[in-house]
């Protein structure tokens, strides 16, 4: 596939991620932070996020599995996940966290478990999407092209 085609594909794909709500404008902020000094900044941050969220989700699973659930702790974890997901622009994950926190407040264990499941799913989804995107980027770079500047105008 020639570079131009790949770039168009990249643009379309990125756009779809935004339209479908996987990513929000904060992601663009990250992209803007990337420069020649840190050419892999976005990939690094996103990787860090997934590492961290993986741990958080595990902790959450354990916490909700307890006989007597410590909702404060669950809430703290979810809050953290909300913060980090919002920082990278993972919108759907963040929204899930918001719902999750409400359930925590209500101390609704079943609801929390369902939400946890949902959060895990959303994390997986966005992870796959981003991986696809980064792969595409690598291909473009390898073919000598550059990543287009993304501007959203909705």
């Amino acid at each position, binding site marked *: 596939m020639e570079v131009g085609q790949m770039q168009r594909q990249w643009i379309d794909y990125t756009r779809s991620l*935004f339209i479908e709500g996987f990513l*929000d*404008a*904060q992601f*663009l*902020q*990250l992209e*803007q*932070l990337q*420069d020649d000094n*840190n050419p892999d*900044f976005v990939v*690094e*941050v996103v990787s*860090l*996020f997934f590492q*961290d969220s993986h741990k958080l989700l595990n902790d959450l699973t354990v916490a909700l599995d307890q006989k007597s659930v410590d909702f404060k702790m669950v809430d*703290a974890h979810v*809050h*953290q996940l*909300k*913060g*980090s997901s*919002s*920082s*990278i*622009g993972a*919108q759907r994950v963040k929204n899930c966290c918001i719902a999750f926190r409400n359930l925590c407040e209500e101390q609704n264990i079943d609801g929390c478990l369902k939400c946890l499941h949902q959060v895990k799913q959303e994390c997986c989804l966005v992870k796959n999407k981003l991986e696809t995107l980064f792969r595409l980027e690598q291909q473009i770079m390898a073919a000598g092209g550059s990543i287009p500047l*993304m*501007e*959203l*105008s*909705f």
Partner: protein
Amino acid sequence: MNLSNGRGSMSTVTSGAAVKSADAVSDQFPAGLRVLVVDDDPTCLMILEKMLRTCLYEVTKCNTAEKALTLLRKNKNGFDIVISDVHMPDMDGFKLLEHIGLEMDLPVIMMSADDGKNVVMKGVTHGACDYLIKPVRIEALKNIWQHVVRKRKNEWRDTEQSGSAEEGDRQQKASDDADYSSSANESNWRNSKKRRDEEEEAEERDDTSTLKKPRVVWSVELHQQFVAAVDQLGIDKAVPKKILELMNVPGLTRENVASHLQKYRLYLRRLSGVSQHQNNMNSSFMNPQDATFGTISSINGIDLQTLAAAGQLPAQSLATLQAAGLGRSAPKGGLPMPIMDQRNLFSFENPRLRFTEGQQQQQHLSNSKPVNLLHGIPTNMEPKQLASLHQSSQPLGNMTVRVNASTQSNPLLMQMAQSQPRGHMLSENTGPHLPRLPSSLGQPSASNGTSNALMGRNGIAGSTRAPGYNPISQSSSMMNFPINQTTEMPISSFPLGSTPGISSITTKGSFQEEVTSGIKRAGGFVPNYDIFSELQKPHDWEVSNPSLTYNAASQHANPLHGNIDVSPSVLVQQSFSSNQQTGQSRDANTMIVKPIFSASESMEQGTLQNQHLNTLVTDNSIRVKTERIPDASSQTNFYPEHYGQEDLMSALLKQQEGIGPAENDFDFDGYSLDNVPV
């Protein structure tokens, strides 16, 4: 890029050019600002670090509060500002804030994904100088340097002003603080905070004033000794003298202890609940004080903040409080009213520099109706002017709504904002209002949620007038309403605007314009810088271009509306009074200049919350431009080219002496309306 970075121009306000060049001329600051970031979330930490580095700051990051404290203690002067997350596993962010405040007295910005009012309020009461909401945008971080400058400035000011009075005032202040804080209006918040800082700084400063004492650094050991002494005496019986004796530390003075005790008491009060604190304050506040500057200023910034935050219209209350505090003359309703008209906001600044004027303004303000109602029609305004204002207000109203919407949906805004070149708000004049709004809003709001939106709004509403002119309360109120955000930002922005305006009138004609515009503009401080340059073009006034401001003012719907009315009259009055004392006006001028600039800086911050000022500036500038165009048509009796200007001028002049719109180049020595052709 960021026009909002109206840096450094504390020096003098001579012209837009000066302002502009200040940016280039000033040393690298804020580049190189030493920031300490504390957050247990590694993703956020990494992003923040990168963002701060992009802002050319020197960043140190740590992921626990303990590490942060260790770092800070090891290197007391190694950092300029601290940014800390609220929720951390080893220590609550607010606790860390307390420690830093007590031991190192550095500005601290709190940060969280939590944007609940309670949490933000906590930040206020604990003395955070700003509160950022995650996800943090780089725009929000670009302006954090203002907190550093503000703090230093306050110290400097305090040193200068309260040197001699300090000692005597201290005791009084200590008791007055509580009093004043009760009716802590947001407008007063800044003042009081500043005052508080000043007092303490003045006391501890090793400065030119002979009354200054060497700065005492409250190390952990020292603080523990202090706490032990206080415990031994019993918190009720703990008086500085006895504490000092018990501590038996050579070189420590009673004043050092007294000031530290004040902080400590606040800290304890916070622990025991804000409400009680407020109650105390409220009752004590009611005691009329000979509101000397000192007294008011001594009001604990934190206390005021708390109270202010509690108020529905923080800006208003602050303004009121401040006005009340500052206005020596019987607060014309300023003192008692925690929630004042938004207009009062702008008197908020005024009192700082000119007490009487502030009062006047206050009255004016209080007379006017709340901003966001289109009713805020200044009595002085002529019907046609009102009409035009009305017109302009409509779009604003819409915008407000937009703002709200945008606030709610940051991503959307951001996206929209993204589509537009970031730092080029100014250049976007030509676009229609609405689109502008989102973009400008988007940027600020993206970072800080509501506060940003507010700021953005302010920016938009108040086209920047001159540096530091705070678009007066109106715009801010405007913003508040639609956005329902009470943030420090608007508050902070206010003071700046109003004060400068007033003083300027007296001293220079150009200032006059500025003042008016500043006032009109509710909320758009930062943009001033932009406007300055803008204004420069059409007019050869020293200060910002009034025309721009005027336009903006008239354009902006309600808020401006009210402002315009008030400002001209207020300004006029003030200028008159100030004229009489040339010497004073000079000083006032200077004084004003400084605050203005700092105001602009703080504007960015939003005082407490800050960050948004940046957006404000940009927003304002944009706003001005866009509005300008439509405005022209709506003007009734203005010359086509200078809408706002003439509008303002005519309003002003008419009020004053029934003179017609002023020409561009009339001499503003004091108040020479004569030159203005009708």
